[in-house]
Protein backbone atom coordinates (compact mmCIF):
# COMPACT_ATOMS: atom_id res chain seq x y z
CA UNK A 1 0.00 0.00 0.00
CA UNK A 2 1.34 3.37 -0.88
CA UNK A 3 1.26 6.35 1.37
CA UNK A 4 -1.43 7.87 -0.80
CA UNK A 5 -3.74 4.95 -0.13
CA UNK A 6 -3.66 5.62 3.57
CA UNK A 7 -5.74 8.76 3.38
CA UNK A 8 -4.55 12.20 4.22
CA UNK A 9 -5.03 12.34 7.98
CA UNK A 10 -1.93 11.90 10.07
CA UNK A 11 -1.95 9.26 12.81
CA UNK A 12 -2.89 10.87 16.13
CA UNK A 13 -0.11 8.91 17.77
CA UNK A 14 2.53 10.53 15.61
CA UNK A 15 4.31 13.72 16.48
CA UNK A 16 3.25 15.23 13.17
CA UNK A 17 -0.40 15.77 14.09
CA UNK A 18 -1.45 19.29 15.06
CA UNK A 19 -3.40 19.77 18.30
CA UNK A 20 -6.48 20.71 16.31
CA UNK A 21 -6.04 17.64 14.10
CA UNK A 22 -5.70 15.40 17.14
CA UNK A 23 -8.77 17.02 18.73
CA UNK A 24 -10.74 16.41 15.53
CA UNK A 25 -9.63 12.78 15.43
CA UNK A 26 -10.56 12.21 19.07
CA UNK A 27 -13.98 13.80 18.49
CA UNK A 28 -14.53 11.54 15.46
CA UNK A 29 -13.51 8.41 17.38
CA UNK A 30 -15.62 9.20 20.44
CA UNK A 31 -18.62 10.29 18.32
CA UNK A 32 -18.55 6.96 16.49
CA UNK A 33 -18.29 4.99 19.73
CA UNK A 34 -20.98 7.02 21.51
CA UNK A 35 -23.66 7.60 18.90
CA UNK A 36 -23.91 3.90 18.08
CA UNK A 37 -24.24 2.91 21.72
CA UNK A 38 -27.82 2.03 22.67
CA UNK A 39 -27.15 2.65 26.38
CA UNK A 40 -26.23 6.24 25.58
CA UNK A 41 -29.49 6.86 23.70
CA UNK A 42 -31.54 5.16 26.42
CA UNK A 43 -29.94 7.38 29.10
CA UNK A 44 -30.38 10.50 26.98
CA UNK A 45 -33.92 9.51 26.04
CA UNK A 46 -34.97 8.97 29.66
CA UNK A 47 -33.49 12.33 30.60
CA UNK A 48 -35.26 14.07 27.71
CA UNK A 49 -38.47 12.26 28.69
CA UNK A 50 -38.24 13.53 32.28
CA UNK A 51 -37.71 17.06 30.99
CA UNK A 52 -40.68 16.73 28.68
CA UNK A 53 -42.84 15.58 31.61
CA UNK A 54 -41.79 18.56 33.74
CA UNK A 55 -42.55 21.13 31.07
CA UNK A 56 -45.78 19.45 29.94
CA UNK A 57 -46.87 19.60 33.54
CA UNK A 58 -45.97 23.32 33.62
CA UNK A 59 -47.95 23.97 30.44
CA UNK A 60 -50.97 22.09 31.81
CA UNK A 61 -50.80 24.12 35.01
CA UNK A 62 -50.65 27.33 32.99
CA UNK A 63 -53.74 26.21 31.04
CA UNK A 64 -55.71 25.32 34.19
CA UNK A 65 -54.53 28.17 36.41
CA UNK A 66 -53.84 31.31 34.35
CA UNK A 67 -52.34 33.07 37.39
CA UNK A 68 -49.38 30.64 37.29
CA UNK A 69 -47.62 31.67 34.12
CA UNK A 70 -45.23 29.57 32.09
CA UNK A 71 -43.55 31.83 29.55
CA UNK A 72 -40.13 33.11 28.65
CA UNK A 73 -38.08 34.94 29.72
CA UNK A 74 -39.52 34.68 33.25
CA UNK A 75 -39.77 30.89 33.38
CA UNK A 76 -36.16 29.89 32.75
CA UNK A 77 -35.79 29.08 36.44
CA UNK A 78 -38.76 26.67 36.25
CA UNK A 79 -37.35 25.10 33.10
CA UNK A 80 -33.86 24.71 34.56
CA UNK A 81 -34.60 23.62 38.12
CA UNK A 82 -35.66 19.98 37.44
CA UNK A 83 -32.74 19.19 35.11
CA UNK A 84 -30.29 21.02 37.38
CA UNK A 85 -31.24 18.49 40.07
CA UNK A 86 -31.39 15.30 38.01
CA UNK A 87 -29.11 16.14 35.06
CA UNK A 88 -25.81 15.68 36.94
CA UNK A 89 -26.94 12.20 37.97
CA UNK A 90 -27.69 11.30 34.34
CA UNK A 91 -24.32 12.64 33.20
CA UNK A 92 -22.62 10.50 35.86
CA UNK A 93 -24.47 7.39 34.70
CA UNK A 94 -23.74 8.13 31.03
CA UNK A 95 -20.07 8.75 31.79
CA UNK A 96 -19.76 5.42 33.56
CA UNK A 97 -21.53 3.64 30.70
CA UNK A 98 -19.21 5.22 28.16
CA UNK A 99 -15.93 4.68 30.01
CA UNK A 100 -16.00 1.59 32.23
CA UNK A 101 -16.83 -0.93 29.46
CA UNK A 102 -13.73 0.22 27.56
CA UNK A 103 -11.80 -1.69 30.23
CA UNK A 104 -13.99 -4.78 30.43
CA UNK A 105 -14.13 -5.07 26.63
CA UNK A 106 -10.39 -4.33 26.55
CA UNK A 107 -11.00 -1.75 23.86
CA UNK A 108 -9.06 0.89 25.84
CA UNK A 109 -6.14 -1.49 25.67
CA UNK A 110 -6.67 -2.06 21.94
CA UNK A 111 -6.94 1.70 21.29
CA UNK A 112 -3.52 2.13 22.91
CA UNK A 113 -2.11 -0.83 20.97
CA UNK A 114 -3.45 0.77 17.78
CA UNK A 115 -1.45 3.92 18.49
CA UNK A 116 -3.55 6.12 20.76
CA UNK A 117 -1.45 7.06 23.77
CA UNK A 118 -3.02 6.62 27.22
CA UNK A 119 -2.99 10.41 27.51
CA UNK A 120 -4.98 10.80 24.31
CA UNK A 121 -7.41 8.05 25.25
CA UNK A 122 -8.01 10.00 28.47
CA UNK A 123 -8.35 13.26 26.51
CA UNK A 124 -10.99 11.60 24.31
CA UNK A 125 -13.06 10.77 27.39
CA UNK A 126 -12.70 14.33 28.70
CA UNK A 127 -14.20 15.44 25.39
CA UNK A 128 -17.07 12.99 26.00
CA UNK A 129 -17.63 14.48 29.47
CA UNK A 130 -17.71 18.02 28.06
CA UNK A 131 -20.03 16.93 25.23
CA UNK A 132 -22.40 15.25 27.71
CA UNK A 133 -22.55 18.43 29.79
CA UNK A 134 -23.39 20.48 26.69
CA UNK A 135 -25.97 17.94 25.44
CA UNK A 136 -27.67 17.66 28.82
CA UNK A 137 -27.91 21.45 28.96
CA UNK A 138 -29.18 21.84 25.41
CA UNK A 139 -31.92 19.20 25.86
CA UNK A 140 -33.82 20.93 28.73
CA UNK A 141 -33.28 24.37 27.22
CA UNK A 142 -34.63 23.17 23.86
CA UNK A 143 -37.48 21.12 25.31
CA UNK A 144 -38.37 23.96 27.67
CA UNK A 145 -38.36 26.55 24.91
CA UNK A 146 -40.58 24.43 22.66
CA UNK A 147 -42.98 23.82 25.57
CA UNK A 148 -43.43 27.56 26.19
CA UNK A 149 -44.69 27.87 22.61
CA UNK A 150 -47.66 25.72 23.65
CA UNK A 151 -48.30 27.66 26.84
CA UNK A 152 -51.22 30.12 26.96
CA UNK A 153 -49.18 32.48 29.19
CA UNK A 154 -48.02 35.63 27.57
CA UNK A 155 -44.32 36.25 27.49
CA UNK A 156 -41.68 38.17 25.63
CA UNK A 157 -38.40 37.33 24.04
CA UNK A 158 -36.73 34.11 25.23
CA UNK A 159 -33.65 36.12 26.19
CA UNK A 160 -31.42 34.56 28.82
CA UNK A 161 -30.79 37.04 31.65
CA UNK A 162 -27.71 37.15 33.95
CA UNK A 163 -29.44 35.12 36.68
CA UNK A 164 -30.58 32.50 34.14
CA UNK A 165 -27.05 32.36 32.74
CA UNK A 166 -25.64 31.86 36.26
CA UNK A 167 -28.13 29.08 36.81
CA UNK A 168 -27.02 27.41 33.59
CA UNK A 169 -23.35 27.73 34.62
CA UNK A 170 -24.24 26.21 38.01
CA UNK A 171 -26.07 23.37 36.26
CA UNK A 172 -23.05 22.71 34.01
CA UNK A 173 -20.74 22.76 37.05
CA UNK A 174 -23.00 20.24 38.77
CA UNK A 175 -22.84 17.99 35.70
CA UNK A 176 -19.05 18.31 35.58
CA UNK A 177 -18.83 17.50 39.29
CA UNK A 178 -20.89 14.32 39.00
CA UNK A 179 -19.47 13.46 35.60
CA UNK A 180 -15.87 13.73 36.79
CA UNK A 181 -16.67 11.76 39.95
CA UNK A 182 -18.21 9.04 37.78
CA UNK A 183 -15.21 9.29 35.43
CA UNK A 184 -12.88 8.66 38.37
CA UNK A 185 -14.92 5.71 39.64
CA UNK A 186 -15.06 4.17 36.16
CA UNK A 187 -11.30 4.59 35.70
CA UNK A 188 -10.48 3.20 39.15
CA UNK A 189 -12.96 0.32 39.27
CA UNK A 190 -13.09 -0.47 35.53
CA UNK A 191 -16.57 -1.92 35.94
CA UNK A 192 -19.89 -0.22 35.17
CA UNK A 193 -21.80 -2.06 37.89
CA UNK A 194 -19.26 -1.40 40.62
CA UNK A 195 -18.83 2.26 39.62
CA UNK A 196 -22.59 2.90 39.63
CA UNK A 197 -22.99 1.04 42.90
CA UNK A 198 -20.33 3.16 44.58
CA UNK A 199 -21.82 6.34 43.11
CA UNK A 200 -25.22 5.56 44.68
CA UNK A 201 -23.72 4.37 47.95
CA UNK A 202 -21.71 7.59 48.14
CA UNK A 203 -24.90 9.64 48.12
CA UNK A 204 -26.12 7.80 51.22
CA UNK A 205 -22.69 7.94 52.81
CA UNK A 206 -22.46 11.68 52.35
CA UNK A 207 -25.80 12.19 54.09
CA UNK A 208 -24.67 10.04 57.02
CA UNK A 209 -21.28 11.77 57.10
CA UNK A 210 -22.93 15.17 56.95
CA UNK A 211 -25.20 14.33 59.90
CA UNK A 212 -22.29 12.95 61.91
CA UNK A 213 -20.15 16.00 61.22
CA UNK A 214 -22.95 18.34 62.28
CA UNK A 215 -23.70 16.39 65.44
CA UNK A 216 -20.08 15.82 66.47
CA UNK A 217 -18.68 19.29 66.15
CA UNK A 218 -19.87 22.85 65.67
CA UNK A 219 -16.81 23.71 63.65
CA UNK A 220 -17.21 20.70 61.37
CA UNK A 221 -20.88 21.44 60.72
CA UNK A 222 -20.36 24.28 58.21
CA UNK A 223 -17.82 22.14 56.34
CA UNK A 224 -20.65 19.83 55.26
CA UNK A 225 -21.71 22.59 52.86
CA UNK A 226 -18.60 21.76 50.87
CA UNK A 227 -19.12 18.03 50.44
CA UNK A 228 -19.50 17.18 46.73
CA UNK A 229 -23.18 16.20 46.62
CA UNK A 230 -24.12 19.10 48.89
CA UNK A 231 -22.25 21.54 46.65
CA UNK A 232 -24.07 20.22 43.60
CA UNK A 233 -27.41 20.30 45.38
CA UNK A 234 -26.90 23.93 46.45
CA UNK A 235 -25.78 24.93 42.96
CA UNK A 236 -28.98 23.36 41.58
CA UNK A 237 -31.17 25.40 43.93
CA UNK A 238 -33.00 28.19 42.10
CA UNK A 239 -33.03 30.36 45.25
CA UNK A 240 -29.24 30.71 44.99
CA UNK A 241 -29.55 32.38 41.59
CA UNK A 242 -32.83 34.32 41.81
CA UNK A 243 -32.79 36.79 44.74
CA UNK A 244 -36.46 37.76 44.19
CA UNK A 245 -37.52 34.11 44.56
CA UNK A 246 -35.41 33.82 47.70
CA UNK A 247 -36.94 37.01 49.09
CA UNK A 248 -40.48 35.66 48.49
CA UNK A 249 -39.60 32.35 50.08
CA UNK A 250 -37.99 33.95 53.12
CA UNK A 251 -40.95 36.34 53.55
CA UNK A 252 -43.23 33.31 53.63
CA UNK A 253 -40.92 31.53 56.05
CA UNK A 254 -40.81 34.61 58.29
CA UNK A 255 -44.61 34.64 58.42
CA UNK A 256 -44.63 30.96 59.34
CA UNK A 257 -41.83 31.39 61.90
CA UNK A 258 -39.53 29.01 60.06
CA UNK A 259 -35.77 29.62 59.77
CA UNK A 260 -34.75 31.74 56.80
CA UNK A 261 -32.79 30.28 53.93
CA UNK A 262 -29.18 31.35 53.51
CA UNK A 263 -26.74 30.38 50.83
CA UNK A 264 -23.02 30.65 50.39
CA UNK A 265 -21.70 32.71 47.51
CA UNK A 266 -22.19 31.22 44.09
CA UNK A 267 -18.58 32.04 43.19
CA UNK A 268 -17.25 30.12 46.19
CA UNK A 269 -19.41 27.09 45.42
CA UNK A 270 -18.35 27.26 41.77
CA UNK A 271 -14.67 27.20 42.76
CA UNK A 272 -15.27 24.26 45.11
CA UNK A 273 -17.16 22.36 42.39
CA UNK A 274 -14.35 23.01 39.92
CA UNK A 275 -11.73 21.96 42.49
CA UNK A 276 -13.55 18.67 43.13
CA UNK A 277 -13.91 18.06 39.39
CA UNK A 278 -10.20 18.72 38.83
CA UNK A 279 -9.22 16.45 41.74
CA UNK A 280 -11.42 13.62 40.40
CA UNK A 281 -10.07 13.95 36.87
CA UNK A 282 -6.44 14.14 38.02
CA UNK A 283 -6.95 11.02 40.14
CA UNK A 284 -8.42 9.23 37.13
CA UNK A 285 -5.54 10.36 34.93
CA UNK A 286 -2.87 9.24 37.40
CA UNK A 287 -4.58 5.88 37.78
CA UNK A 288 -4.84 5.38 34.04
CA UNK A 289 -1.22 6.39 33.51
CA UNK A 290 0.15 4.15 36.25
CA UNK A 291 -1.95 1.03 35.83
CA UNK A 292 -1.55 -1.57 33.14
CA UNK A 293 -4.36 -1.92 30.63
Amino acid at each position, binding site marked *: *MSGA*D*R*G*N*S*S*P*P*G*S*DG*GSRLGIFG*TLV*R*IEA*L*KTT*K*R*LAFWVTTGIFAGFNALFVISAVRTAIRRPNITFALPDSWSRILEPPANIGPFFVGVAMILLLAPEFS*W*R*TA*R*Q*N*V*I*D*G*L*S*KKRFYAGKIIVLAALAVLFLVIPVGVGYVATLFSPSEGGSPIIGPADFNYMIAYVLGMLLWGSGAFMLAALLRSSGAAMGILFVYLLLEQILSRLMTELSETLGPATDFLPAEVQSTLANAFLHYPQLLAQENAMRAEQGRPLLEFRDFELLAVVALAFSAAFLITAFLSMR*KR*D*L
Partner: protein
Amino acid sequence: MVVSGRADVYGEPMAIIETFELSKRYGTRRANSVLAVDQVSIAVEQGQVFGFLGPNGSGKTTTIGMLVGIINPTGGSFSLFGASEPRDLVAARARVGATLETPNFYPYLSGRDNLRVTAAIKGVGQPRIEECLELVGLADRAKHRFRTYSLGMKQRLALAATMLNDPELIILDEPANGLDPQGMKEIREIIRILAGRGKTIFLSSHLLWEVERTCSHVSIVRKGRIVATGTVEEVVSAGTAALLKAEDPDALEAALADYPGASSVRRLDGGVVVALDSDDLGTLNRYLAGLGIHVSHLAPYRQSLEDVFIDLTEGDFDSMTEIAS
Protein backbone atom coordinates in the same frame (compact mmCIF):
# COMPACT_ATOMS: atom_id res chain seq x y z
CA MET B 1 17.48 -17.32 6.83
CA VAL B 2 17.50 -14.13 4.87
CA VAL B 3 17.68 -10.80 6.57
CA SER B 4 16.46 -8.28 4.08
CA GLY B 5 15.64 -4.63 4.12
CA ARG B 6 17.10 -1.49 5.53
CA ALA B 7 20.37 -1.28 7.40
CA ASP B 8 21.68 1.38 9.72
CA VAL B 9 24.47 3.79 8.84
CA TYR B 10 27.11 1.21 9.73
CA GLY B 11 25.59 -1.36 7.38
CA GLU B 12 24.23 -3.47 10.25
CA PRO B 13 20.65 -4.69 9.96
CA MET B 14 18.35 -2.34 11.84
CA ALA B 15 16.90 -3.67 15.10
CA ILE B 16 13.16 -3.07 14.94
CA ILE B 17 12.60 -4.44 18.44
CA GLU B 18 15.35 -4.50 21.02
CA THR B 19 14.84 -5.36 24.66
CA PHE B 20 17.51 -5.14 27.33
CA GLU B 21 16.89 -7.09 30.51
CA LEU B 22 13.21 -6.20 30.26
CA SER B 23 11.34 -7.25 33.38
CA LYS B 24 7.85 -7.09 34.80
CA ARG B 25 6.94 -7.88 38.37
CA TYR B 26 3.28 -7.92 39.38
CA GLY B 27 2.58 -6.92 42.96
CA THR B 28 4.58 -4.63 45.17
CA ARG B 29 5.31 -6.88 48.13
CA ARG B 30 8.22 -9.07 47.15
CA ALA B 31 6.88 -12.12 48.99
CA ASN B 32 3.55 -12.07 47.13
CA SER B 33 4.76 -10.64 43.85
CA VAL B 34 5.12 -12.56 40.60
CA LEU B 35 8.02 -12.04 38.27
CA ALA B 36 6.22 -12.50 34.95
CA VAL B 37 9.09 -11.38 32.74
CA ASP B 38 12.64 -11.79 33.95
CA GLN B 39 15.42 -9.84 32.22
CA VAL B 40 14.39 -10.65 28.68
CA SER B 41 16.87 -9.47 26.07
CA ILE B 42 15.98 -10.04 22.44
CA ALA B 43 16.65 -8.29 19.15
CA VAL B 44 14.35 -8.53 16.16
CA GLU B 45 15.81 -7.19 12.96
CA GLN B 46 14.06 -5.81 9.95
CA GLY B 47 12.47 -8.41 7.71
CA GLN B 48 12.59 -11.21 10.25
CA VAL B 49 9.61 -13.40 11.00
CA PHE B 50 10.29 -13.87 14.67
CA GLY B 51 8.58 -16.62 16.64
CA PHE B 52 8.12 -16.01 20.36
CA LEU B 53 7.34 -19.33 21.98
CA GLY B 54 6.49 -20.40 25.46
CA PRO B 55 3.93 -22.33 27.47
CA ASN B 56 0.84 -20.53 28.76
CA GLY B 57 1.81 -18.12 31.53
CA SER B 58 5.44 -17.97 30.49
CA GLY B 59 5.38 -14.18 29.97
CA LYS B 60 4.90 -13.91 26.21
CA THR B 61 1.86 -11.64 26.28
CA THR B 62 3.29 -9.55 29.12
CA THR B 63 6.45 -8.97 27.07
CA ILE B 64 4.41 -7.94 24.05
CA GLY B 65 2.19 -5.80 26.29
CA MET B 66 5.24 -3.82 27.38
CA LEU B 67 6.32 -3.33 23.76
CA VAL B 68 2.93 -1.98 22.72
CA GLY B 69 2.56 0.31 25.73
CA ILE B 70 -0.26 -1.28 27.70
CA ILE B 71 1.94 -2.71 30.46
CA ASN B 72 4.50 -0.66 32.34
CA PRO B 73 7.87 -2.44 32.69
CA THR B 74 9.33 -2.66 36.19
CA GLY B 75 12.90 -3.18 34.97
CA GLY B 76 15.14 -3.01 31.94
CA SER B 77 14.42 -1.12 28.76
CA PHE B 78 13.38 -1.58 25.17
CA SER B 79 13.31 0.25 21.89
CA LEU B 80 11.03 0.16 18.85
CA PHE B 81 12.54 1.38 15.59
CA GLY B 82 15.39 2.76 17.71
CA ALA B 83 13.04 4.86 19.87
CA SER B 84 13.14 4.30 23.61
CA GLU B 85 11.82 7.56 25.12
CA PRO B 86 8.08 7.53 25.94
CA ARG B 87 7.31 10.39 23.54
CA ASP B 88 9.26 8.79 20.69
CA LEU B 89 7.69 5.42 21.41
CA VAL B 90 4.22 6.84 20.75
CA ALA B 91 5.38 7.83 17.26
CA ALA B 92 7.17 4.51 16.77
CA ARG B 93 4.01 2.60 17.69
CA ALA B 94 2.22 4.28 14.78
CA ARG B 95 4.40 2.03 12.61
CA VAL B 96 3.24 -1.10 14.41
CA GLY B 97 0.16 -3.23 13.89
CA ALA B 98 -0.58 -5.51 16.82
CA THR B 99 -3.22 -7.74 18.28
CA LEU B 100 -2.97 -9.35 21.70
CA GLU B 101 -4.67 -12.51 22.92
CA THR B 102 -8.38 -12.34 22.07
CA PRO B 103 -9.56 -9.78 19.50
CA ASN B 104 -10.76 -6.70 21.37
CA PHE B 105 -13.48 -4.71 19.62
CA TYR B 106 -16.68 -2.85 20.46
CA PRO B 107 -19.36 -5.56 20.54
CA TYR B 108 -22.16 -3.19 19.55
CA LEU B 109 -20.35 -1.82 16.51
CA SER B 110 -20.25 -3.54 13.13
CA GLY B 111 -17.00 -4.95 11.82
CA ARG B 112 -16.70 -1.96 9.49
CA ASP B 113 -17.38 0.58 12.24
CA ASN B 114 -14.82 -1.11 14.47
CA LEU B 115 -12.29 -0.73 11.69
CA ARG B 116 -13.36 2.92 11.35
CA VAL B 117 -12.37 3.49 14.98
CA THR B 118 -9.01 1.81 14.39
CA ALA B 119 -8.55 3.66 11.09
CA ALA B 120 -9.19 7.02 12.78
CA ILE B 121 -6.54 6.20 15.39
CA LYS B 122 -4.09 5.14 12.71
CA GLY B 123 -4.94 7.96 10.33
CA VAL B 124 -6.16 5.69 7.56
CA GLY B 125 -8.89 6.40 5.00
CA GLN B 126 -12.06 4.48 4.11
CA PRO B 127 -10.69 2.78 0.95
CA ARG B 128 -8.09 0.93 3.01
CA ILE B 129 -10.83 -0.33 5.37
CA GLU B 130 -12.65 -1.93 2.45
CA GLU B 131 -9.38 -3.33 1.11
CA CYS B 132 -8.55 -5.00 4.43
CA LEU B 133 -12.09 -6.36 4.83
CA GLU B 134 -11.75 -7.95 1.39
CA LEU B 135 -8.32 -9.30 2.25
CA VAL B 136 -9.56 -11.18 5.33
CA GLY B 137 -12.81 -12.27 3.66
CA LEU B 138 -15.16 -10.23 5.85
CA ALA B 139 -16.55 -7.81 3.28
CA ASP B 140 -19.92 -9.61 3.24
CA ARG B 141 -20.28 -9.52 7.04
CA ALA B 142 -18.79 -6.07 7.56
CA LYS B 143 -22.15 -4.46 8.38
CA HIS B 144 -22.99 -7.01 11.08
CA ARG B 145 -22.25 -6.38 14.73
CA PHE B 146 -19.00 -7.71 16.12
CA ARG B 147 -20.85 -9.61 18.85
CA THR B 148 -22.46 -11.82 16.18
CA TYR B 149 -19.10 -12.94 14.78
CA SER B 150 -17.61 -16.39 15.30
CA LEU B 151 -14.19 -16.57 16.94
CA GLY B 152 -12.59 -17.18 13.57
CA MET B 153 -14.25 -14.06 12.15
CA LYS B 154 -13.12 -12.06 15.16
CA GLN B 155 -9.56 -13.20 14.53
CA ARG B 156 -9.85 -12.16 10.89
CA LEU B 157 -11.17 -8.74 11.88
CA ALA B 158 -8.25 -8.38 14.29
CA LEU B 159 -5.87 -9.21 11.47
CA ALA B 160 -7.59 -6.66 9.22
CA ALA B 161 -7.24 -4.02 11.96
CA THR B 162 -3.59 -4.91 12.37
CA MET B 163 -2.92 -4.41 8.66
CA LEU B 164 -4.92 -1.20 8.24
CA ASN B 165 -1.98 1.20 8.35
CA ASP B 166 0.30 -1.09 6.35
CA PRO B 167 2.60 -1.35 9.39
CA GLU B 168 6.29 -2.03 9.16
CA LEU B 169 6.15 -4.24 12.24
CA ILE B 170 3.30 -6.67 12.81
CA ILE B 171 2.89 -8.23 16.23
CA LEU B 172 0.51 -11.17 16.38
CA ASP B 173 -0.29 -12.93 19.63
CA GLU B 174 -1.77 -16.37 18.98
CA PRO B 175 -3.36 -15.33 15.66
CA ALA B 176 -4.52 -18.86 14.86
CA ASN B 177 -6.58 -19.24 18.04
CA GLY B 178 -10.05 -20.45 17.18
CA LEU B 179 -9.36 -20.88 13.51
CA ASP B 180 -10.11 -24.05 11.58
CA PRO B 181 -7.29 -25.68 9.56
CA GLN B 182 -8.26 -23.70 6.48
CA GLY B 183 -8.22 -20.49 8.50
CA MET B 184 -4.82 -21.34 9.94
CA LYS B 185 -3.51 -21.96 6.46
CA GLU B 186 -4.84 -18.59 5.33
CA ILE B 187 -3.22 -16.85 8.28
CA ARG B 188 0.05 -18.56 7.42
CA GLU B 189 -0.31 -17.43 3.81
CA ILE B 190 -1.02 -13.85 4.88
CA ILE B 191 2.06 -13.92 7.11
CA ARG B 192 4.14 -15.22 4.21
CA ILE B 193 2.82 -12.51 1.90
CA LEU B 194 3.56 -9.84 4.48
CA ALA B 195 7.03 -11.25 5.13
CA GLY B 196 7.60 -11.28 1.37
CA ARG B 197 6.85 -7.56 1.34
CA GLY B 198 9.69 -7.02 3.81
CA LYS B 199 7.49 -6.61 6.88
CA THR B 200 8.92 -7.57 10.21
CA ILE B 201 6.65 -10.02 11.99
CA PHE B 202 6.72 -10.87 15.67
CA LEU B 203 4.59 -13.95 16.17
CA SER B 204 3.68 -15.39 19.52
CA SER B 205 2.22 -18.85 19.27
CA HIS B 206 2.11 -22.27 20.81
CA LEU B 207 1.39 -23.93 17.46
CA LEU B 208 4.98 -25.03 17.03
CA TRP B 209 4.68 -26.61 13.62
CA GLU B 210 3.14 -23.34 12.42
CA VAL B 211 6.05 -21.40 13.81
CA GLU B 212 8.62 -23.81 12.37
CA ARG B 213 7.02 -23.44 8.95
CA THR B 214 6.59 -19.69 9.12
CA CYS B 215 9.38 -18.15 11.20
CA SER B 216 12.97 -17.37 10.39
CA HIS B 217 13.98 -16.71 14.00
CA VAL B 218 12.69 -17.90 17.30
CA SER B 219 13.01 -17.30 21.02
CA ILE B 220 11.73 -19.74 23.58
CA VAL B 221 10.63 -18.28 26.87
CA ARG B 222 10.09 -20.22 30.05
CA LYS B 223 8.90 -18.77 33.35
CA GLY B 224 9.67 -15.28 32.08
CA ARG B 225 13.21 -16.04 30.94
CA ILE B 226 14.60 -16.62 27.46
CA VAL B 227 15.95 -20.17 27.35
CA ALA B 228 16.84 -20.38 23.66
CA THR B 229 17.10 -17.89 20.84
CA GLY B 230 18.42 -17.75 17.30
CA THR B 231 17.41 -18.84 13.83
CA VAL B 232 15.00 -21.76 13.80
CA GLU B 233 17.82 -23.91 12.40
CA GLU B 234 20.19 -22.84 15.18
CA VAL B 235 17.68 -23.55 17.90
CA VAL B 236 16.65 -26.89 16.44
CA SER B 237 20.22 -28.10 15.90
CA ALA B 238 21.57 -26.71 19.16
CA GLY B 239 21.17 -30.03 20.88
CA THR B 240 22.12 -33.51 19.69
CA ALA B 241 19.58 -36.27 19.80
CA ALA B 242 19.55 -39.95 18.91
CA LEU B 243 16.79 -42.40 18.06
CA LEU B 244 17.30 -45.86 19.54
CA LYS B 245 15.37 -49.10 19.25
CA ALA B 246 15.74 -52.31 21.22
CA GLU B 247 13.79 -55.47 21.92
CA ASP B 248 12.70 -54.15 25.31
CA PRO B 249 11.90 -50.45 24.90
CA ASP B 250 10.99 -50.10 28.59
CA ALA B 251 14.42 -51.26 29.70
CA LEU B 252 15.99 -49.05 27.03
CA GLU B 253 14.08 -46.01 28.23
CA ALA B 254 14.99 -46.68 31.87
CA ALA B 255 18.66 -47.11 31.00
CA LEU B 256 18.71 -43.91 28.95
CA ALA B 257 17.04 -41.99 31.75
CA ASP B 258 20.03 -42.90 33.94
CA TYR B 259 22.61 -42.07 31.27
CA PRO B 260 24.71 -39.14 32.57
CA GLY B 261 24.89 -37.44 29.15
CA ALA B 262 21.12 -37.48 28.57
CA SER B 263 19.09 -34.31 29.09
CA SER B 264 15.71 -35.80 28.18
CA VAL B 265 14.24 -39.12 27.09
CA ARG B 266 10.94 -39.82 25.39
CA ARG B 267 9.20 -42.60 23.46
CA LEU B 268 8.67 -42.15 19.74
CA ASP B 269 7.39 -44.59 17.09
CA GLY B 270 8.42 -47.77 18.89
CA GLY B 271 11.79 -46.32 19.75
CA VAL B 272 13.23 -43.91 22.25
CA VAL B 273 14.59 -40.44 21.49
CA VAL B 274 17.26 -39.17 23.81
CA ALA B 275 18.56 -35.61 23.86
CA LEU B 276 22.30 -35.69 24.49
CA ASP B 277 24.87 -33.28 25.80
CA SER B 278 27.37 -34.44 23.13
CA ASP B 279 27.22 -36.24 19.79
CA ASP B 280 29.35 -39.16 21.00
CA LEU B 281 27.01 -42.02 20.13
CA GLY B 282 29.80 -44.62 20.55
CA THR B 283 30.02 -43.96 24.28
CA LEU B 284 26.24 -44.21 24.54
CA ASN B 285 26.30 -47.56 22.70
CA ARG B 286 29.02 -48.92 25.02
CA TYR B 287 27.05 -47.73 28.08
CA LEU B 288 23.96 -49.61 26.93
CA ALA B 289 25.95 -52.72 26.00
CA GLY B 290 27.47 -52.64 29.48
CA LEU B 291 23.93 -52.85 30.87
CA GLY B 292 23.15 -55.77 28.58
CA ILE B 293 20.92 -53.76 26.28
CA HIS B 294 21.72 -54.36 22.64
CA VAL B 295 20.12 -51.81 20.34
CA SER B 296 18.73 -52.71 16.94
CA HIS B 297 18.78 -49.06 15.83
CA LEU B 298 21.00 -46.17 16.87
CA ALA B 299 21.15 -43.07 14.68
CA PRO B 300 21.30 -39.30 15.05
CA TYR B 301 17.82 -37.84 15.23
CA ARG B 302 16.90 -34.43 13.87
CA GLN B 303 14.67 -32.81 16.41
CA SER B 304 11.74 -30.65 15.45
CA LEU B 305 11.13 -27.29 17.04
CA GLU B 306 8.40 -28.99 19.06
CA ASP B 307 10.94 -31.49 20.45
CA VAL B 308 13.30 -28.69 21.46
CA PHE B 309 10.43 -26.70 22.94
CA ILE B 310 9.22 -29.63 25.02
CA ASP B 311 12.79 -30.39 26.17
CA LEU B 312 13.31 -26.79 27.26
CA THR B 313 9.95 -26.38 28.95
CA GLU B 314 9.52 -29.92 30.21
CA GLY B 315 9.11 -29.00 33.88
CA ASP B 316 6.16 -26.77 33.08
CA PHE B 317 4.25 -29.54 31.35
CA ASP B 318 5.09 -32.00 34.14
CA SER B 319 3.50 -29.68 36.63
CA MET B 320 0.43 -29.34 34.40
CA THR B 321 0.18 -33.13 34.23
CA GLU B 322 0.38 -33.24 38.00
CA ILE B 323 -2.45 -30.74 38.27
CA ALA B 324 -4.55 -32.69 35.80
CA SER B 325 -3.95 -35.97 37.63
